[in-house]
C-alpha cells in the first residue's frame, strides 16, 4: 500500500503534451524533466514531488510512440497513473519502463487535484473515504513490471543479473 497526492489532467493527454518533440533529443531524461507537460501546464514539472500520482480521463498517452513520455513521467517520481483508459503504445512503453498504470472508470470524475489517495495494487484505491476497485495486470506484463522494466527482464534472460 502507498499514499500519493493527486495531480489531475484531462482527456486525450497526448505525448506531445507529455514531452514536446523539441526536447526528445536531449541526451538524458534528467535534461527532459523540466519540460514535461509544458504545452499544457508549464509549472507542473517543478511542482511534482516523488511519490505523487497523476489522475486523468480517457486515452492518456495518445499520439506518438515516443518512450521519452513514460520515461520522463517515471523520472519525475510519479508512483502511478490512474486514468479511464490509455493509448496502447503508451501503455506498453510505461510497463516496459516499470511505470505502474491503473485503469479506473469512476475515480477521475469524483476526485480533485490535491486529494490524497491510498493505493493497494491489484485491489483498490481509497480517496476521501471512498473505495474504487482496480484490476490486476495480465501475468506477462506483471512479470516485466516486477522485474523493474523490460531492460532488467532481458538482462535476467541473458544471464546478466
Amino acid at each position, binding site marked *: 500500500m502507498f499514499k500519493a497526492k493527486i495531480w489531475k489532467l484531462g482527456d*486525450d493527454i*497526448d505525448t*506531445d*503534451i507529455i514531452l*514536446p*518533440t*523539441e526536447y*526528445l*533529443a*536531449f*541526451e538524458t531524461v534528467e535534461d527532459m524533466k523540466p519540460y514535461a507537460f*509544458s*504545452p*499544457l501546464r508549464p509549472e507542473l514539472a517543478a511542482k511534482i514531488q516523488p511519490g505523487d500520482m497523476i489522475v486523468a480521463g*480517457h*486515452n492518456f498517452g*495518445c*499520439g*506518438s*510512440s*515516443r*518512450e*521519452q513520455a*513514460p520515461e520522463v513521467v517515471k523520472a519525475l517520481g510519479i508512483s502511478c497513473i490512474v486514468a479511464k*483508459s*490509455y*493509448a*496502447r*503504445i503508451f501503455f*506498453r*512503453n510505461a510497463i*516496459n*519502463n516499470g511505470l505502474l498504470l491503473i485503469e479506473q472508470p469512476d475515480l477521475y470524475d469524483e476526485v480533485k487535484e490535491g486529494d490524497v489517495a491510498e493505493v493497494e495494487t491489484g485491489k483498490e484505491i481509497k480517496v476521501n473515504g471512498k473505495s474504487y476497485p482496480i484490476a490486476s495486470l*495480465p501475468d*506477462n506484463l506483471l512479470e516485466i513490471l516486477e522485474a523493474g*522494466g*523490460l*531492460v532488467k527482464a*532481458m*538482462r535476467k534472460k*541473458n*544471464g*546478466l543479473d
Partner: protein
Amino acid sequence: MGHTLVEKIIGNKVGHEVKPGDIVTVPVDWCMIDDIMVPFAVQKFEEMGFSKVAKPDSVVLIYDHFLPATQVDDSRHFRVGDEFAEKYGIKNVHRTDGICHQLMTEAGYVKPGDIAFGTDSHTVTYGCVGAFSTGIGYTEMAGILGTGELWIKVPETIKVEIDGTLPGNVTSKDIILRIIGDLTASGATYQSLEFTGSTVEAMSVASRMTMSNMAVEAGAKCGIFAPDEKTCDYCKIPYDDSIKALKADDDAIYSKVLRYRAEDFVPVCACPSLVDNIKPVSELKGVKVNQVFLGSCTNGRLEDLRTAAAILKGKHVAPFVKMIVTPASRKIYREALHDGTIEILNDAGCIITTPGCGLCCGRGGGILSDDEVVVATNNRNFLGRMGTSKVKIYLASPVTAAKSAIAGEIVN
C-alpha cells in the same frame, strides 16, 4: 469460425488459428528504427546485454525527422546509427532518401502478409499493402533486435465498409478524418481497422496509405486493406493464390461495422487541437491562413503533389501565405521534377524542401507563432506541434490545402 484479415496474418505467422485477446509471440519480418529513436534503442539494446542482432537483414534504419539537422545535437543520432549499423552488420540504412513510412513499402521491404514494428506510431501505414504493422517504443525495439520476436495481443477488428464514388473534391484524407471524428481519438484503441468496399477497391495504393497512416489517430493498432492486383504491382510481386487468400472470411467476427456511402463525404478539416475535432470545410469560412504545408507520410506522395499542382497551375498562392511542399521521398521528388509538377508548384510560389518529415514534427523550416493558422496535410494537430502552443493547426486534404493557399483562407 471465420477470421478477420489481421487474425489471418498473425495466424499464418504463428502457425495456428488465433482469436482476439490471445497473447502470442510473433516472429518479426521487419523492424524500422527512425533517427529520433536510434540512440535510445541502441542504448537499451546494449543495456540488455545482447551481443548480436538476431536478424540484421530485417532491420531498417531511416534518418528523416532530423534531416537536414537543425539543432546542434541532431547529428549525434546519425553517428550512433551509423556506428550501430557497422558494428552489427545492418545493411539497410537510408540516410537521405525520405520519410521512413514511405520508404518501408516504396523501397521494397514490407510486403502483404508481413509483420512489421517500428519506433514511430505511424508504422501503421504498411497496412496499406495488407501487412500487420504497428508502433512500439525503443525498449521493445531493443528486445526485438536481440530476439527477433515480440509478444502481441491479437486485436479485435472494426470493419469500415465504403461503397460508391467519391465527389470530385474529396480525397481519402477526408474519408479517414471523418472516420476518426466518428470513432473519436480513442474509439479504436487496441483494435484493428479493416477497410473494405468498392470505394477503397477503386483507390490507388497511395490513397490507401493515407488512411492506414491515420488509423492510429483513432487509437487503432493497425489500419489494414486486403491486398489486390494494385498492391502487387506496387510491391512488384505476383498476384498469386497466397496473396488472394489474404482477406477476411465472409463469416469473420467484428466488434463493430461502420458503413458509409462515398457520395456522402464532404471536404473536412481536423480543427485545433484534436484530430477528432472534425468540421466540414464549408463551416470554416473566413478562417485566414498564414501557412500551408503539403507533405508528410500522410500526404506527401506524387498523387498529392499532382493534385495540388493541378489546382495551382497558372495561379499563385495568396500574397501573405507561405506554402511549403515537402515530397515524402527522393523517388517522389524525382518523379515530380520529371513530370513538371515541381515546376508548376515553384511557379505558383511554393517553397519546395528536401524530402523528410519536415514541419510535420515541428522540425525543419516553417515553425509558426502565437495565433497563426496553418492548413496542413499531415496527421496531427496537437498543441505546440508546429511552434508555440497557440498555433492553430487545421489538418486537411491536398485539395483543401492548395485551394486555401490560393484563397488565403480555408476553402475547398
